[in-house]
Structure formats: C-alpha cells, structure tokens
C-alpha cells in the first residue's frame, strides 16, 4: 500500500484540491448547518448565563469550576496534534504528513479559539475581563504574575498567535495557486491580498523555507509549554488530586492523544466530504493510527504513574480522592475514561482495523470521549472530595446550560473548521506535489536499480 500514487499529475493535484473550494459533497452543508445550530444553542446559553449569573450553570461552593474548565482543557489538548504533525514531523522529515498537516494545523488554531471561549464563559464578571491583562492603566496595578491562570492566558495567547502565523505562512504558496486559478470575485481578492505577491522565485522559496522552519522550531517548545502550564493550573494548586508532580507530561501526553484521535476523525470526514481519497490515503491513515496507538500507551503509562504515585504516598487526602474516583459517584465516568482511554486503543493495535474506516471513526470518537472524561475527572472529583470533609458533596450535576455550552463548543469548532476548509485549501498543494515528486524520484531510482540488477 502506498502513501500516495507517484504518478499523479500536478495539474490534477491543483484541480482536485482547488475543487474542494468549490463543490464539496452534500454532507458538508449538513455538517455546517448542524454546527451552526449547535453554536446557536451556546450563544443562547451564554446570554442567559451572562444576564442571570453563573448560578444557572448549577455550579456551587465548593464545585466552582465544573465542565467549563474541563472542556477548556480538552480543547487546549486538542490543539497539540496540529503542531505534532506539522512542526515535529516536519523537522523529522516524515513526508507522509504532507497531505494532512494543513488541516491538522487548522485544527490547532480553531481548537485554541474554542478553548479561549471557555475562559470567557467561565469567568463570573466577563465585563471586567480586561483586568487580567497586563496593560498600562491609570490605576497603576498589574495582574498577579504569580497566578498560573495568568501564565495560562499568556501561554495560550502566544501559542494561538504563533499557530495562526504558522498556518498562514505555510499556506502562502498555495494561496498563490488559488489566486492564479480562481475566477474573479471576493475570494480572488482575498487570495491576492494574502499571497503577498508570491511568485515562486528561488529567493522566495529560500526565504520561505527558512521562515517556515524557524516558526516550526519556535512552535514546538510552545506547544509543550502551553499544556504544561495548563497542567500547572492544577499542579501548582494545593488540592488533593491536583498537586501532582507528573501532571505536566501527563497533560501533554493527553493532549497529543486527544489531538491524534481528533485528527483521525477529521481525516475520515474530510476525505469523504472533499473527495480527497487520492491524497488522504489509507496508508497515511494507518500511520496516524499507529502514532495514536503509541501515544495512547504513553498516556496509559503516565496515568499509571500518577495512580501509583498517589497510592504509595502518605498523602491521605489525595488517596481518598483517588478511591473516591474509582468507587464514588464519579466511578461510572472514571471507569469509562479508563475504558475509552486505555482499553479502546488496543483495537488500533490490530492491523485489520488500522485501515477500517467505520471502525476507526467509531474508535476515534470514543477515544475523544475518553479524553474529555479524563479532563472532567481531573476537575470535578477534587472539588467534591477535597481536604475539608464538611464541604464534600455528591449531588452537584452540571445543568443543561453547562451541557449546552459544551455541546455548542463542538458546533463552534466544527463551524470554524469547515468554513476554513471550504475557503482555504485544506490539503497543501505544493507539499503534496513535493511528496509526489520525491516519491517518483525514489521509485525511478528503485526501478533503475532494479533494471541494473537484471
């Protein structure tokens, strides 16, 4: 099985991929409509919550965070695989990433944007949000640089802006192709503007390569740090179940894991919707699946490390939280998380499933469910079973407003992502051409060698 056919003509590549900007399958419009509707639900919830107060989310003391923060971490985590595919694999010269890195990178950007929304939704006085920004003000006071939440805000903002930049820079040659091939209209103007006068000269290519490489190098530590910092929100606090040294790598692993799972899901959708069967081949899917499997095992290992660390420590409160997770009211969710996160990926170990699209679609969704549950299981049980027994509680259940908001975030993400894929080429044309070229060279070399042997 080949990653890509070596004999695709460049013109065909242009035609196929530019086609995705024109006429997707009907399913595309179904998805966009559903996403829009889901997002609308969230808007309604937020308006109601903003006007009435956070109480409508059925948060309480001590359960002050709930699904908003859990889903926030989920989306931050989701963003990591884009960087993995586009930057890390780029540096490692794994060329099979080429047809899929663009949409992965877009996924990074949009999931960060979704995560950012949750910060807003979560905050009690959204209208005073600007207090948390370090800007010069007449009061002469700064935000608290000690707070992991502030680090968070900064890390996410930096990561988001870098990701956008990376996505954009990597798109420039393709934008030029779009510019050159599209009919007149607003899109042509847009591409003209964004392509920055790209002509494909040698000098341009050289500068482009260096810039792209530089940003990729810059982005990798950012990606690691951003989720480490999100982990610090918990690890830096003092609460049982949160104050865990291994949280940063654990979070990063979890992030890559959920990101990879999401890539599988989106891979399958895009492949169908935009008729990318030629480019997003099953062979590439298989590689992604294997990567996912590897990461899932890392995550499982780190999970075990965390449990063992707690279990063999003298921290009775943390132990109590762990036992509560496994046996208390959250037990069904916790065990589902273990099942989805550590048992489900074993399916991916079987070769026959590694290219079975329906199975992979289902499994990838379950993996993501598991990872979402993981975030919830980090946040909620500590609140309901913290240091102070008097405030333990087990009847807090997120209200429909919270669920609505979580639901809507998927709508918002899908909406952004789908619109992006329709407006911009979601498969990198120039990189695919490169790939095809390299593969054909390789093939030729192989053929030559073969002939020589004869």
């Amino acid at each position, binding site marked *: 099985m080949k990653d890509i056919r070596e004999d695709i003509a460049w013109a065909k590549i242009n035609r196929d991929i530019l086609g995705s900007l024109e006429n997707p399958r009907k399913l595309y419009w179904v998805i966009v409509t559903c996403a829009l509707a889901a997002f609308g639900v969230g808007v309604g919830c937020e308006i109601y919550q903003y006007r009435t107060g956070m109480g409508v989310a059925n948060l309480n003391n001590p359960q002050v965070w709930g699904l908003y923060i859990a889903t926030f971490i989920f989306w931050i985590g989701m963003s990591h695989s884009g960087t993995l595919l586009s930057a890390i694999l780029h540096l490692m010269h794994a060329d099979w990433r080429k047809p899929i890195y663009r949409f992965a990178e877009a996924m990074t950007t949009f999931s960060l944007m979704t995560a950012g929304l949750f910060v807003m939704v979560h905050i009690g006085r959204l209208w005073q949000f600007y207090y948390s920004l370090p800007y*010069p003000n007449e*009061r*002469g006071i700064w935000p608290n640089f000690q707070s992991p939440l502030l680090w968070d805000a900064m890390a996410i903002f930096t990561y988001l802006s870098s990701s956008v930049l990376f996505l954009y820079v990597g798109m420039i040659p393709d934008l030029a192709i779009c510019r050159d091939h599209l009919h007149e209209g607003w899109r042509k103007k847009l591409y003209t503007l964004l392509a920055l006068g790209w002509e494909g000269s040698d000098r341009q290519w050289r*500068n482009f390569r260096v810039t792209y490489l530089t940003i990729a190098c810059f982005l990798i530590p950012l990606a690691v740090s951003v989720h480490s910092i999100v982990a610090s929100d918990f690890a830096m606090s003092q609460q049982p179940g949160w104050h865990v040294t291994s949280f940063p790598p654990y979070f990063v692993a979890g992030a890559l894991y959920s990101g990879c799972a999401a890539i599988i899901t989106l891979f399958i959708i895009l492949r169908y919707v935009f008729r990318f069967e030629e480019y997003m081949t099953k062979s590439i899917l298989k590689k992604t699946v294997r990567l996912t499997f590897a990461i899932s095992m890392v995550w499982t290992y780190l999970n075990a490390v965390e449990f063992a660390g707690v279990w063999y420590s003298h921290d009775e409160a943390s132990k109590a939280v762990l036992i509560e997770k496994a046996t208390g009211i959250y037990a069904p969710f916790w065990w589902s998380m273990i099942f989805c996160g550590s048992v489900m990926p074993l399916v991916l170990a079987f070769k026959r499933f590694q290219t079975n699209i329906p199975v992979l679609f289902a499994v990838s969704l379950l993996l993501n469910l598991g990872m979402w549950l993981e975030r919830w299981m980090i946040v909620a049980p500590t609140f309901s079973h913290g240091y102070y027994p008097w405030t333990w509680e087990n009847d807090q259940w997120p209200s429909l407003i919270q669920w609505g908001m979580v639901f809507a975030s998927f709508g918002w993400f899908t909406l952004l992502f789908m619109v992006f894929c329709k407006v911009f080429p979601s498969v990198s044309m120039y990189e695919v051409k490169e790939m095809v070229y390299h593969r054909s060279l390789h093939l030729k070399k192989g053929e030559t060698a073969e002939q020589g042997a004869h």
Partner: protein
Amino acid sequence: MHRLLRLSILLMGLFSAAGSYAADATQPTLTTEDSLGPQVVQPIEFPHNRHAGLRNPNDPTNSDPAKGGMEIDCQYCHTYARRSAVAGIPPLQKCIGCHQSIETVRDKPRIQELFKYWDAKKPVPWKKVHDLPDFVRFNHERHIKRFVEQQNRPTQEACGYCHGDVKSMTVARRSKPLTMGWCATCHQKAHPVAAEGGTPIGNQAYWYSFQKPVADASGGAVKAQGPNDCWQCHK
C-alpha cells in the same frame, strides 16, 4: 533573512519602549469639556463663591455679591468632615441659623426657596457632586486631621486637593477625576517614609505595585504613610 530579523528586533524594541512609556505616563484626566468638571443641577443654586470666596478689599461692607465673598471656612458648614468619614451636607437649620437674621437677602428667590423648605420642615434634596463608587472607603476625618490639624494648612487648600477651587464656583462641580489612579498620584508623591506612625508593608499588595516600599533610615521595618493595602480604600 537577517534584514527581517533586524526589523523584527527593532519593532519589538520600539513596541516595548512605547509600552513602558505608556505604562509610566498614564495619568488620570477629567473627561469633561472644561477643566471644572461635570455640571450638576441642584434644587437651589447654592453660591459657594458668595459664601467662601475671598472678600473684596474695595468693598468693606461686602454688599455686592458680584464682587466678593465672605471667606467663610469650609468647616463652618461642613462640620462633619473633621469628625466622620463622610463630610455630609449641613442640616437646613444651619442655613436658617444665619439667614433668618440677614434681612437684606430675604427676598431673593434662592433664599425664599430655602425658607419654603424650612417652613415645610423638609430637607433639601441636594444632588451628590463628589460621589465615589460604593466599594470605596474614603475618610474625610483622616485627611483633615493630617493637613489642617497637624500640618496647619489652610482649610480651603486642604479641601481643595480633592474638591478643587470651590470658593470660585457657584454650585460645586467635581473638578478632579477622583479615580484610583488619581488618588495614587498624590499618595505616592506626598507620602514618603515617615519616622513614626507608619504601617509596615505587607507583602503582595506592594508587588502588585500600588505603593513603592521604602526602607527607613535605620534599615529596619519598611514603613509608608497612607494607603498601603487594598483594604485601606476598598470595602
């Protein structure tokens, strides 16, 4: 490539320089059209200038209202300021106390209005001119004690730090911004280390910046006058 690098370094430098300048230079200002502050319509247009304004040296009988005031001390009417956190408005009784024996102005419309309230035993519904937000605690008594009693400054000067030149106004207007940054400008300039009576510095509040801690001469506890933690002024 190098040019690009140089350009970005230059840009970043410019940006941070501008940012830090902006951070240091932000000064609170009034946002009204003139420097006297917003106008407030009062039930009776009380002429502060007539009561507190300077006497006209050429008019010993002080008969012409257009030309001079009577130099009444602020605290003659606003007696609560030295005794309480709030300055308050004097009771109607106070106005009448003088005005019932000043026959010359009895038929003036404003005075007639005043007596109407008095006869009905109804308080005058004055509008607040200097109205701090409800989460702010400001203590008049402390400021009067410090400036007027300890440092012997003239009342009008001391009150004027926050209330402006009221003696030149008719109806008082808020001519200072009264914002947090504005309070701080004074408290940072005018309150360096004091030998006695200062409060030692906590920790975090300073770091967030409000007031710079200064070590005293002996190198001992760090002391500062005036507000030094948020709870001094916020309630």
